């Protein structure tokens, strides 16, 4: 293939001689991993915040270890640990109890890593937001006979949203950018797709810049969405 004399439009075209389709496929994979990891991370964060605020001393200590370790170890190292060490240990364990081996693909490992990292940060974000709710509101809910689950769903969750949203929107942006790290284990998300296109065509600057533009679009659009969500969550409150 002679990529040398192709124009920019031809190189970025979606159909095969161009590499635009490969980039978009990479973007789609990135978004899937980021979305899956983010949602799972939110669940971990919710459970973590609940545990830190109202769990017993052992649970609180364990959660403190979790958030401290995850936030101090580089994501790249965590990816290697989860991609190479955890499946190995899991399989040894499975063989010991007489089960077959399982294989953890890069997609699942990617979602797991991002969920673990996001969970640690989300725990702190949500803990802060829940603590900022006046005690009286929650006590009022209990005094009206609401169950703990109902109180959480109807009072705590909506009341903590305005405080948590800025942090959560930041976490989403971190999630989309963290997917790039999966390139080191050979997962063809956007960054690695761009690198492959660049390597094949020798147009390094063009493809890496194109990937950058796609990432930038994602973060700008996400910003708009989260701004709108924030406006919705804080409606009725005074906008200082």
């Amino acid at each position, binding site marked *: 293939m002679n990529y040398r004399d192709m124009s920019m439009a031809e190189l970025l075209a979606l159909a095969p001689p161009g590499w635009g389709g490969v980039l978009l496929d990479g973007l789609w994979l990135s978004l899937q991993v980021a979305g899956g990891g983010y949602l799972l991370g939110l669940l971990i964060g919710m459970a973590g915040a609940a545990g830190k605020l109202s769990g017993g001393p052992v649970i609180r*200590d364990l959660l403190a270890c979790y958030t401290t*370790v995850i936030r*101090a170890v580089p994501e790249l190292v*965590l990816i*290697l640990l989860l991609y190479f060490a955890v499946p190995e240990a899991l399989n040894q364990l499975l063989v010991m109890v007489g089960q077959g081996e399982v294989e953890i693909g890069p997609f699942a490992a990617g979602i797991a890593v991002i969920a673990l990292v996001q969970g640690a940060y989300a725990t702190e974000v949500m803990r802060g937001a829940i603590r900022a709710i006046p005690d009286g509101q929650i006590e009022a809910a209990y005094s009206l006979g609401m169950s703990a689950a109902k109180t959480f769903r109807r009072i705590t969750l909506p009341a903590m949203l305005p405080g948590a949203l800025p942090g959560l929107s930041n976490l989403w942006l971190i999630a989309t950018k963290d997917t790039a790290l999966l390139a080191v284990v050979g997962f063809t998300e956007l960054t690695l797709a761009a*690198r492959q296109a660049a390597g094949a065509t020798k147009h390094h600057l063009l493809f890496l810049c194109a990937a950058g533009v796609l990432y*930038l679009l994602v973060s700008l659009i996400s910003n708009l969405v989260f701004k709108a969500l924030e406006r919705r969550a804080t409606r009725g409150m005074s906008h200082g």
Partner: protein
Amino acid sequence: MAERRLPPHRLVLIAIVGLGVTMMVLQMRWDWLLDYRDAILGGLWLTLVLLVTTSVAGFLLAIPLGLVQATGPRPLAWLARCFCTLIRGTPLLLQIWLLYYGLGSLFPYLPGVRGSWLWPYLTEAWPYAFVALTLSFAGYEGEVMRGGFAGVPRGELEAARSLGMHPLTILRRIWLPRAVQRVLPTLNGELIIQLKATPLVATIAAVDTYAVFGRIRQETYLVYEPLLLMALIYLILAGLITLAFGALERSWSRRAAGD
């Protein structure tokens, strides 16, 4: 500080962790440590050098970036905001590759570059790593500094101006120190994020801690030991940063209290 008694559940947890660590030390293979001691120390050195130099350089860049956004003329403020958005909106790995593979592939074709004194540096990996990490730190910290500058109470600046201070003197003596003091608590987190970003330079063949352990993994075929030790090393480095900042913040607040 008075010695606090450890609650019993914590003693149990510590005992369990201690048991786990002892098992790891005794059961796992660590004989490779001696062979790779120098390589690990070398990688650690590059990690630390990159962390310190890029943070300092990035912070120095962040000061004008923040100042211009807080008070500068429109076009400059706009440029600074674009730079911060660009850095914060794209993954650092992509930025590093863009510099190393993208710009790096252009340099040989520029006339005069091959013969210049810069050439020997441009063929190595660490200058690209340094520039990418510095720009990244500047982008994130520039945004923080903007908030720091904007948050200094107007009255303090007006008081300085009413005393006839030169604008540059105000910046040097009042505005900058007060802004830095305001962002100091966030710097701890930013530094740890920067530490966690340094392994990315291993992807462009700079031999830092992460790259050294990658080599060890390939050469010894060990699955757990190198990864666990590497995680422990980064954990300890992050802990040291936090301890250092705790001390720094205490001494700053003591000075601010006029002690």
